[in-house]
């Protein structure tokens, strides 16, 4: 099947080639002047380390393990995300914990270790989909880089603290004592 | 200055003859042309020097190198072993020619006059003088040469372009 190409009839002025060139030069010069008199901050270019792009909602960046208001981890170590992960970058070790002071004889599960290999992660968001407790989600931080492989293994505390600065929370490094039994909150 | 330019010319010419690589030989020839241009300047004829560079190095040698590159002979073919007869014949021929040329120059009237009156600085040649010489004194020769060149050009185009 052939495609019909319309031939453009050029006027004699266009055929001299000089006039169209001058028109084109006019256009480029307009752009030049416009850029010249635009302050740097208002130009299209985002000068990266100084300015950062606002990522669109739904962007899948670095993971965060969410916590409750009192700081306790929301994750219940159900291994759903580990199963759902197509890149198999999540590895979880569960532990039981009980706080006899509050709930007599009550026991709950939480991850002792929760690590994501960021070199393997493909940022697909399946873990977020799979999580029954909304404990893990992917947010907008895209600057995930390090100087060696080892520091790309994000552990439990790294993942819990990824967005502390952005959210204004304090960063934690040990499980705080829960004030209320989780089951009541879940109910 | 004369020695420098003469050396450049001679070395360039020698290099062109002895060099096995065609492109390097061509570049040696460019050097020789440059030396000749310098000699022209020393003879107070900068116009000839400029024309030498424009025409010979700027156009002709470029075209020659262009053709060499288009044929693209990176590996040089081994030349056939020349017969000693050829070699001796060429050497004697060149010797005879050189002898004749030297004798011609030494016996010329200009040189004897130079010996008598001593050297004088030749008058500077300008484009105006060349113009008047070409278009007033040697008009017929110039026109004929132009016609011959035009005919040659048309012939070349007609030969190479099959379907005009």
């Amino acid at each position, binding site marked *: 099947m052939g495609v019909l190409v319309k031939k453009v009839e050029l006027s004699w002025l266009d055929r001299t080639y*000089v006039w169209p*060139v001058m028109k*084109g*030069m006019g*256009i*480029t*010069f307009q*752009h*030049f002047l*416009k*850029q*010249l008199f635009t302050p*740097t901050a208002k*130009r*299209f*270019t985002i*000068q990266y380390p100084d300015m950062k792009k606002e990522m669109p909602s739904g962007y899948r960046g670095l993971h965060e393990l969410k916590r409750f208001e009192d700081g306790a981890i929301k994750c219940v170590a159900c291994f759903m995300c580990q199963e759902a992960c197509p890149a198999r970058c999540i590895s979880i070790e569960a532990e039981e914990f009980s706080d006899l002071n509050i709930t007599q004889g009550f026991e709950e599960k939480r991850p002792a270790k929760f690590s994501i290999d960021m070199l393997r992660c493909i940022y697909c968001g399946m873990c977020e989909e799979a999580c029954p407790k909304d404990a893990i989600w992917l947010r907008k931080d895209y600057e995930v880089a390090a100087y060696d492989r080892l520091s790309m293994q994000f552990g439990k505390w790294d993942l819990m603290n990824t967005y502390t600065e952005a959210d204004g929370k304090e960063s934690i490094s040990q499980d705080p004592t829960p004030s209320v039994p989780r089951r009541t909150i879940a109910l | 200055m004369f020695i420098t330019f003469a050396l450049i010319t001679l070395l360039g010419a020698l290099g062109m003859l002895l060099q096995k*690589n065609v*492109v*390097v030989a061509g*570049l040696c020839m*460019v050097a020789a042309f440059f030396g000749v241009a310098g000699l022209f*300047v020393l003879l*107070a*004829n*900068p*116009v000839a*020097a*400029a*024309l030498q*560079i*424009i025409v010979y*190095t*700027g*156009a002709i040698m*470029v*075209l020659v*190198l*262009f053709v060499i*590159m*288009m044929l*693209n002979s*990176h590996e040089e073919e081994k030349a056939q072993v020349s017969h000693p007869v050829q070699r001796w014949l060429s050497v004697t021929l060149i010797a005879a020619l050189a002898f004749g040329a030297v004798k011609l120059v030494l016996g010329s009237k200009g040189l004897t006059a130079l010996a008598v009156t001593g050297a004088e600085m030749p008058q*500077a*040649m*300008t*484009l105006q003088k060349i113009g008047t010489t070409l278009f007033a004194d040697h008009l017929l020769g110039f026109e004929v040469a132009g016609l011959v060149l035009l005919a040659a050009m048309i012939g070349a185009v007609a030969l190479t372009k099959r379907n005009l």
Partner: protein
Amino acid sequence: MDKLASLLHTTPAIAWMVAKLVIVFGGVFSLAALWTWVERRGSAMIQDRIGPNRAALFGKIKIIGLAQPLADGIKFFFKEDLVPHDANKALFWLAPFLALVPALMGFAVIPFGRSFMSGGQEYHMALLDPGNGMGLLYPLAIGGMAVYGVLVAAWSSNNKWSILGGMRASAAMVSYEIGMSLAVVTIFMTAGGYDPSEVINAQGHLPWAWNVVRQPLGFIVFFTCMFAETNRLPFDFAEGESEIVAGFNTEYGSMKFSLLALAEYCHLMTASALMATLYFGGWQVPFVQNPAVMLSVLSFLVKMLFFAWVFVWIRWTLPRFRYDQLMHLGWKVMLPLSMANLVFHAWRMSQGH
């Protein structure tokens, strides 16, 4: 000048010569280096980008990125100097110099200011004094030499793309030289001389008496041919990145590449100086009869830099031609146009204008 000369125990003429050498070659070279920055910055502006604006002296002084050429130079110096295995080593080394030297030399004959008298001696603002007999044939001759840098670089790299680029460059240069020469000849004819000072004096100080008004056709032809001569876009066939990798400088890196690039910009400077001299009255200041020396130098500089900017401007406006279009334009348009220009002006002169 006299005082300086007596300080250095030389004659004023020699001191002036040395000063001119430094001014001309240093000036052209540094302008060429600067123009790499102008090119990048200008192209960025034209394409609504920002361009190199971050290079800073001592990590602090950021003058709109003006330190970029310096940084580039340092970077090029410390890069590994690669020579391809099968390249012709000697020629590979020689080529950048063959490219750079003609590009710089071409400037020697162009007067960049009004001659002035001082202490009974006349000082000329050009490396070669007027009346040297070579006149404007000299930049044409040297411009013709510039192709050797490209050719030798192309051939010695032993690379198919390089050779293609070199062949294109040589063919383009030879074919455009003719149209250019004929356009220049017309100027020689109307000016009645081929010395740049004569050409400039013939144009006078009134803008409507400049050659660009008198022979606009010649100007267009010369202008176009200058693009082909300097191998700049739209005619940069030696280096068509989209077609033949990087053309003649595919195999070049580090300082050798930077010399090749600098040669291009030096050539650009020389070409724009030629254009200013031939068609825009050289150092003549519009409407000023006998300008002060510094004013004339300034005027020349402004004209030259304007044309250098036009080179950049056009490069980022027009796409590259196809090769057959280039040949078509050169032989079937530019040559007849410059011929017509020549014949027309010859006829006018015969009519006594």
